[in-house]
């Protein structure tokens, strides 16, 4: 203890001469820092209502609520996050996890209100003074709580796959599938979009758990063509996937396939479960494609006796006769058909409707009848020369290849069309050309330009890899035939624009830009029609029609009470739509049959 110790404390008095350090008016003079985690903002136009913010909030401060003026649509639940500031702890995990980046925070931190309920609000909908604040917390670049990149699907390289019809993609290993399944945020937007409403997040969860049998059971509850759809589904689900907004969508299709690959096929029927007891009702189905067989599967499981009449040698419809083996191996399709047969469905192949079996006969012999005949007639351009024998239709050729018929494979051929069928036939013929002639000589001409292409991007990419030439924006003008009557190629005109002022598909041609595509065969793959002739004139006349298609109600029932129609022939081409149709029809028929029992 010194004298200094007595005097020193008095130095505090020097502070009398210091300026004050307080901020006089903090409400206006003290804005939050640029990164400040202040009040929430939400760009409601960007927000898809996936609810990931709600899922991650550990305080349960966020509820997804319906909002006036925002409708539920594909890829948007129509809900928006409502935040309760009585619970929020401003951790910003909701901002970090937001799948679209729509949710952010302002640097505003003062809010005074006498109504406690005001502090529970929907950012972006209930307008606030900070809605336009530029500063505030945004998820920093590279800071992600969900992995944006898809696990790459291994596939055969072009050199190895071009000479054969083996399946191109390898399928995921258990580790890869689990890693991909981990990425799912289980928002369920996919379920709403999937025509068959498959329980996608749930079956993806079974992959994470490694419980494949539970996964398989879930799959077949909504889709008896799970092996098929696991390979060739148009996967609309993936286009609405929440992860898609700032990354690659979850590979839902490949994950579905992975489940079916992991379960021993002998176990399928046990896992799916046996049908209910017989009801004594008889149902006929015309066409053993996805729509017809799905309805047959459901109806058989409900205990009805189902007979399916199929014109072709094998069941499967377009999935067998339209889709090449390298995309969908026949054994995968057979396995699905076997499951359907195991439910007691009697599939009569090689039994076309017409001579021996007629619609009138079916009407008489069965309680109800379903027409699911698909779109098996190829359309023709009917340009000059298109009636030449060396001008074929893609669907006919694909069917011939599937049935193992010998076809005269040309060294060079030109395909007209830009959809997946055009790619299918081009790639199938390219494989045959490689096998027979040793090299590929395929040209595809499509009306659409690449930015509006109809075929899936991977089809285009893989076609290029396989050495197929694709010319976009070319309109077919004439099939060229030489003096001795051989096809020598296709003349096309440049397509200048493909939509009219009303946004309808209506190409405009430039006759000045003409091109000759060399080929000794021309294949038309421009579109398909249903072979409704099998209905017979009398039934055609009785039925109601809507712009060329049989008129059906929401359940698929036609104007004739005993007849339903489903699948591509009423709703246009898509496997999983056909499956969804099949379910609807089965439920509707079952209700009608049960009502009959009661009356």
């Amino acid at each position, binding site marked *: 203890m010194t004298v200094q110790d007595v005097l020193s404390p008095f130095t505090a008095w020097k*502070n009398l001469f210091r300026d004050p350090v307080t901020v006089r008016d903090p409400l206006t003079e003290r804005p939050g820092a640029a990164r400040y*985690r202040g009040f929430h903002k939400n760009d409601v136009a960007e927000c898809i209502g996936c609810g990931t913010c709600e899922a991650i909030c*550990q305080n349960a401060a966020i509820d997804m609520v319906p909002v006036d003026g925002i409708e539920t649509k594909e890829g948007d639940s129509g809900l928006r996050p409502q935040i309760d500031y009585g619970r929020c702890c*401003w951790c910003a995990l909701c901002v970090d996890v937001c799948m679209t980046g729509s949710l952010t925070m302002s640097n505003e931190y003062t809010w005074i209100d006498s109504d406690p309920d005001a502090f529970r609000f929907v950012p972006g909908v209930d307008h606030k003074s900070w809605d336009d604040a530029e500063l505030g917390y945004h998820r*920093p670049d590279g800071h992600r709580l969900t*992995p944006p990149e898809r696990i790459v699907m291994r596939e055969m390289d072009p050199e190895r796959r071009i000479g054969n019809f083996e399946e191109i993609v390898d399928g995921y290993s258990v580790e890869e599938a689990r890693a991909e399944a981990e990425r*799912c945020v289980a928002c369920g937007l996919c379920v709403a979009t999937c025509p068959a409403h498959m329980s996608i997040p749930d079956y993806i969860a079974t992959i994470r758990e490694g419980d494949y049998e539970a996964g398989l059971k879930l799959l077949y509850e909504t889709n008896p063509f799970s092996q098929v759809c696991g390979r060739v589904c148009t996967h609309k689900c993936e286009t609405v996937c929440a992860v898609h907004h700032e990354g690659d969508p979850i590979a839902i299709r490949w994950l579905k396939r992975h489940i079916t690959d992991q379960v021993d096929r002998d176990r399928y029927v046990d896992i799916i479960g046996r049908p209910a007891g017989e009801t004594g009702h008889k149902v006929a189905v015309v066409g053993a494609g996805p729509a017809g067989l799905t309805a047959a599967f459901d109806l058989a499981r409900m205990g009805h006796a189902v007979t399916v009449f199929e014109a072709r040698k094998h069941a499967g419809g377009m999935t067998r006769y339209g889709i090449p083996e390298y995309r969908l191996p026949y054994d995968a399709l057979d396995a699905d058909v076997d499951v359907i047969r195991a439910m007691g469905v009697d599939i009569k192949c090689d039994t076309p409707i017409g001579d021996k079996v007629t619609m009138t006969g079916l009407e008489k012999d069965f309680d109800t009848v379903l027409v699911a005949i698909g779109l098996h007639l190829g359309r023709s351009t009917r340009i000059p020369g298109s009636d030449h024998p060396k001008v074929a239709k893609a669907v006919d050729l694909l069917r011939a290849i599937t049935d193992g018929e010998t076809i005269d494979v040309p060294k060079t051929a030109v395909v007209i069309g830009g959809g997946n069928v055009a790619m299918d036939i081009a790639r199938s013929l390219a494989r045959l050309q490689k096998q027979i002639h040793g090299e590929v000589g395929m040209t595809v001409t499509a009306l659409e330009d690449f930015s509006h292409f109809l075929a899936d991007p991977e089809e285009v990419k893989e076609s290029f890899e396989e050495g197929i030439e694709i010319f976009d924006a070319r309109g077919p003008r004439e099939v060229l035939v030489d003096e001795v009557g051989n096809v020598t190629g296709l003349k096309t005109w440049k397509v200048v624009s493909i939509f009219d002022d009303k946004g309808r598909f209506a190409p405009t041609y430039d006759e000045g830009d003409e091109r000759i595509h060399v080929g000794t065969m021309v294949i038309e793959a421009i579109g398909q029609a249903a072979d409704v002739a099998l209905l017979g004139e009398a039934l055609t006349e009785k039925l109601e029609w809507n712009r060329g298609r049989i008129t059906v109600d929401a359940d698929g029932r036609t104007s004739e009470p005993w007849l339903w129609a489903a699948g591509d022939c009423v709703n246009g081409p898509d496997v999983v739509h056909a499956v969804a149709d099949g379910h609807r029809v089965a439920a509707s028929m079952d209700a009608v049959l049960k009502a009959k029992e009661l009356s």
Partner: protein
Amino acid sequence: MALFELDRSQYPEAKADGSLDIDLASGKYLKLWQGPQHPGITGNMSVELTVCGDEVVEGRTHVGYLHRGFEKLMERRTFIQCFPIVCRICVPEPDFNEYCYAAAVEELAGLEVPERAHWIRTLILEMGRINSYMMYLGGQAGSFGMGVIGQWATYVRDLMLDRFEEMTGARIYHMFILPGGVRDGLPEGFAVRMEETLREVERALKDINDVMYCNAVFKKRTVGVGVITPEMIEPYGVTGPNARAAGVAKDVRKDQPYLVYPELDFEPVTGSVSDIYTRADVRRRDVHVSIDLIRQILQKMPKDGPVMTRLPNVLNWKIPEGETYIRGECSRGEYGYYLVTDGSGYPRRVNVRGPSYTHAMALLEKLIVNANISDVAGLMVSLHTYPPEIER
């Protein structure tokens, strides 16, 4: 130093269970309840005092006023959802919770944290240490009636909170260190503003030194009071400045280096006799060490590179079975997180080891005997304890 020896000759013998046979009816003794709100503690905690005149005969600590059940809550939260919770376990120095939890999760989940994130984490922890000491200084001075120190300390703490705000986006609960790294890099011009802040801290420290440490009253009230002998260190689990003031150079930053401490140049601050004064002095010098460490960090740290590793989808995050204990040197001693995982998406058990647990209970009960009632608050503050970390 007879003063340090407990003189119990005039009080009843302790019974077998350690309690005293006090006859309140005799009128010689008085039960005095101090707390749960009182100047001796940051938070809520009570001491049940038995006094004889103005001398404490016995003190029993009562905790539990701040129990929020965080450890149990975390067993029902996913690993990412625990992240916003942990900082709340210790209000005045929350970042240690974020760091320990993140490091424990990273170890069990096998995450590699980017280099720059390690530097930023160290920076944050040292900034937090300064703030924690500033809060202590205010409390220590206040408990002896020197209110102005608290205002000065709060001012510089506020400047440091500004730095926290611009870096992390929040002032108190930063929620910035999350498993895998830190949220973001340093904002533009941060080092310059930090240097200005550090100078203010130094200036304030000098003033505080003049007014508090070189103050006859303060010395008189604190020197030789509440002495922790070196022999008590191990049995009472004393760590941090409380132990270092006794000359025991325990510092996790040196003993079991973590983050980037091996690359930084510093020596743990020690004293000779761990009484209230020396403990206060050790903490004052520790602030200078932290200031120096922050300058070193800002100079040596990599200027760019990632600060966050790629996380798995946190909504489906499962961590393999395992257990780990992560420790660090916080302003009060050894802070630790014991994390047990069972392969599920939730922690099986989280145990938070706050240094206050031993300091505020067993150690205080030992030191409080024979203390003057007027010194009790000052003694409690000198142990620098935070009840929220006692009751997780």
